[in-house]
């Protein structure tokens, strides 16, 4: 059998693409490498969840002058199933930059508004209806004391009950993609097969004819299956899409411009109890320095607190006895450095990703840390513990202010990121973009990319909103094209 459309990946981009294609009456097959999990399997401790829900158990660092911890989801729903659900529209400024620098056509603020409206409706994006957790309250207090604008961020987690297990999958089924979009796509006829990894695209004369997918059988052996279709969508995320393209011999400008939001975490100790491990993470983001620098709440459990304190562990370990008084926050910057993604030459299954934190990123991270620390101290924290090796706890705002002008040493930083994109940017600039303005791979008539890798560069805000809205915009255009 030959499908109308094969979609590889069922995350933010893939699920929306599948829904629209299926609703348009096309025969749709979605290949997903990860598994489909029942709600009862969710919310497990990190020791179980990491292996089950994350690509390579979460051990996929992005290398470079400052290596960065990076994780991405690998299950039905992709990273949306393990993320915290924060939802932002693409800032107008980013859209303007994309138009100016990448000549991205028809993707202005107004053109995208209908797709954001649609997505927010489908994914039940909303502010929390529950009382703010203590970690949010103190953060709001600090922002007010500093006189900075801050906002509770809407989330794609309507049924959130504050279980504080976001990265382990929501046992209450709050995540919008598996709660609404994928079931609707299946109801419209899309066929989601999990445990199938797309290994190779079969190309001939500027077209893709089929895909080779690996599937593990019950007996442990691996079967390679050839599946053919008229059209192909790659929605494997910012690292796997370029890796699959390059492995398939499609290399022109592919994987040359990986961007991330580098993130530095701090832990703060408050005199009052926050019990941050017992409720959802802080819901507020400081928008004052946005989109270059954002400040917000980080996921907090005893294990994550220990990791965040681990750069200076011998000094920080005693703090763990006061866990109830601790909370974790982050400074994230709109990365302006650039990286790359390549399939590894060492192993067929590995991908090697690099990103070079540049001087501007370093300045923004340092300033962001100064501001975040000042905010937390203004909120009443007794000390702030940044994830920077050799840096003493910051106990006064004046100490924090030092980093407004000085730059943190690269070799002492512990950076992480969960926001990666732009490895195959779209736009009319052929010298920069392997995809046209609608996600079609240049030189291939029936191959498209519709995931985080298509974003021209860093949006500066939580990216899933941008991915979903642009994915819908692109797929509607594709449906129009084939109807014509």
């Amino acid at each position: 059998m030959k499908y109308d459309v094969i979609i590889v990946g069922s995350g933010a981009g893939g699920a929306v693409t599948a829904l629209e294609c299926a609703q348009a009456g096309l025969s749709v097959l979605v290949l997903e490498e990860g598994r489909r999990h029942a709600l009862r399997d969710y919310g497990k401790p990190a020791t179980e969840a990491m292996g089950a829900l994350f690509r390579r158990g979460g051990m996929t660092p992005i290398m470079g002058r400052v290596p960065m911890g990076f994780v991405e989801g690998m299950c039905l729903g992709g990273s949306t199933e393990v993320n915290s659900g924060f939802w932002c529209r693409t800032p107008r400024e980013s859209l303007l930059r994309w138009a100016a620098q990448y000549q991205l056509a028809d993707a202005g603020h107004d053109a995208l508004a209908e797709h954001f409206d649609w997505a927010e409706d489908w994914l039940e994006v909303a502010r929390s209806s529950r009382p703010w957790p203590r970690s949010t309250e103190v953060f709001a207090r600090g922002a007010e004391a500093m006189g900075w604008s801050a906002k509770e961020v809407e989330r794609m987690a309507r049924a959130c009950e504050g279980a504080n297990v976001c990265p382990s999958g929501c046992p209450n089924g709050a995540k919008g993609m598996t709660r609404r979009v994928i079931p609707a796509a299946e109801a419209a006829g899309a066929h989601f097969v999990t445990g199938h990894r797309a290994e190779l695209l079969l190309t001939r004369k500027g077209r893709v004819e089929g895909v080779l997918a690996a599937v593990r059988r019950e007996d442990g052996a691996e079967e390679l299956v050839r599946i053919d279709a008229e059209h192909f969508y790659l929605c494997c995320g910012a690292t796997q899409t370029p890796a699959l393209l390059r492995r398939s011999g499609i290399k022109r400008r592919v994987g040359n411009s990986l961007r991330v939001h580098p993130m530095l975490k701090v832990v703060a100790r408050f005199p009052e109890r926050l019990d941050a491990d017992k409720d959802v993470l802080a819901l507020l983001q400081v928008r004052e320095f946005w989109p270059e620098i954002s400040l917000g709440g980080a996921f907090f459990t005893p294990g994550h607190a220990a990791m965040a304190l681990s750069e200076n562990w011998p000094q920080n370990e005693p703090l763990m006895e006061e866990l109830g008084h601790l909370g974790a926050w982050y400074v994230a910057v709109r990365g302006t450095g650039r990286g790359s993604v390549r399939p590894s030459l060492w192993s067929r299954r590995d991908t090697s990703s690099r990103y070079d934190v540049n001087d501007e990123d370093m300045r923004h991270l340092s300033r962001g840390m100064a501001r975040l620390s000042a905010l937390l101290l203004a909120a009443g924290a007794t000390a702030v513990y940044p994830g920077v090796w050799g840096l003493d706890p910051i106990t006064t705002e004046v100490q924090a202010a030092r980093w407004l002008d000085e730059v943190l040493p690269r070799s002492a930083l512990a950076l992480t990121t969960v926001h990666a994109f732009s490895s195959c940017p779209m736009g009319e600039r052929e010298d920069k973009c392997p995809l046209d303005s609608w996600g079609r791979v240049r030189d291939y008539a029936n191959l498209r990319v519709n995931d985080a890798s298509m974003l021209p560069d860093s949006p500066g805000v939580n990216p899933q909103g941008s991915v979903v809205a642009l994915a819908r915009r692109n797929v509607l255009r594709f449906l129009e094209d084939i109807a014509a």
Partner: protein
Amino acid sequence: MRRVVLLLVGLAISGALVVLAVQSLDLDVVRRTLSEADVWPWVPAAMATYVLGQVLRGWRCQVLVKRDAPLTLATATNIVVVGYAVNNIAPLRLGEFARAAMLSERAGLPFAQSLGVTFLERVLDGLTVLGLLVVAIFALGDSTWLELVAAPAAGIFGAAAAGVGLAVVAPAALVGIASRLGSVLGRKVQEVAIRLAVQTTASVRALRRPDQAALIVALSAVVWLVEAAMFLLILGAFDLPLRYDWALLAMAVTNLSVLLPSSPGHIGPFHYFCQQAVVSVGVAADLGLAYAVGVHLAFYVPVTLWGVGLILWYAQAGSWRLSMLRRAEGASAEAASGIGRVVAVSAAPSVPGGPTRFLGALVGALIPVDVAADAAKATVTTRFVHDRLADLPARLRLLLLVGLTGFRMLVVLRFLRPFESLPAARRRSVVAAWAYGPVPPARALFKAVRSTALLAAWEQRAA
């Protein structure tokens, strides 16, 4: 046909120059001089210097394409080395094309642009070597080589540099010329001509930024000064005076001479001109030839081995794709699974082993004392760390293995006991010194182990 002619001409020139080089020499003397050369430390030092030169060339290549593709220094160096190695084993300077093809493949650049970059590198090399030749000629006060080598080379590289200069300052003009010429042959040809002109002019983009242009020119100079250092070190192997002006002259004359068509590895021109360069400063002809052979070996052996190794490595990485494509072509409709046709079945992978005693001890030294003392929790933590480390990409796993092996060896040297046999308190202090100490690479080595161990241990503790 043209290629065959060129190949034959090259071989003929090689042959003729070999004859010229050995003519009227007592080859036994040459052989004896070679066998009596002081290999140690000169030849290994010369080879290492040559390798350093390749890394510098890689750096330059990295800067040249930086705005289009972020190549690592290792990849960029490998690209350069493959080009040199192919030139050493294949005729017709095919290495230049191999280098451009590999640059295009690794960097994802259009081939025309990669070829343009390779051409630019060669023009920069030519101009730099020419400049150094003039310096050597003035330093030695002997103008023999001025007419023989410098003048023709100046003609060739001057013309090439003018073309590059035009592409740098007036790319639009070149595109315009291409468009006009192409239009004579119809619209399609015109489009292709424009595209090629745009891609080719993009290859000199780096030179339009003064800071990058300065770095590229400086790197070109350093590359060839380092290459001259290799020629200098080989002088030492033959007990010749260590004169940098001699080395500079020999390096420049030899490298300009290999512009002549010749056999793979430039046999003939390399030896003859290198010999003649040192003869012109007063070295005996047989010693000069032995010197030329020595330099050629230092130039030929490491880079050819390195390049051929790389070619095999890249070939094995690409072979999987080719074999799968072949199988996919032949996939029969009968072998259908639920959604498609089965192309291949591979055996179940072997089950990886469990955590070692060393890993258990290492994890125990990183986690809270009470979790370490609780056998069940310690086991879960160690298992988790083991599984996560096994999930790391193969290259990082290898680095980790090498690093931890080094750590274990240093522990044995220092305490005369393996890490696992140290008392628990000692294990903790040793690990803390590495994992949280002032040496960044040591901290980096322990990062994955300590992060996963702390995560699992504290989740266990809270459970």
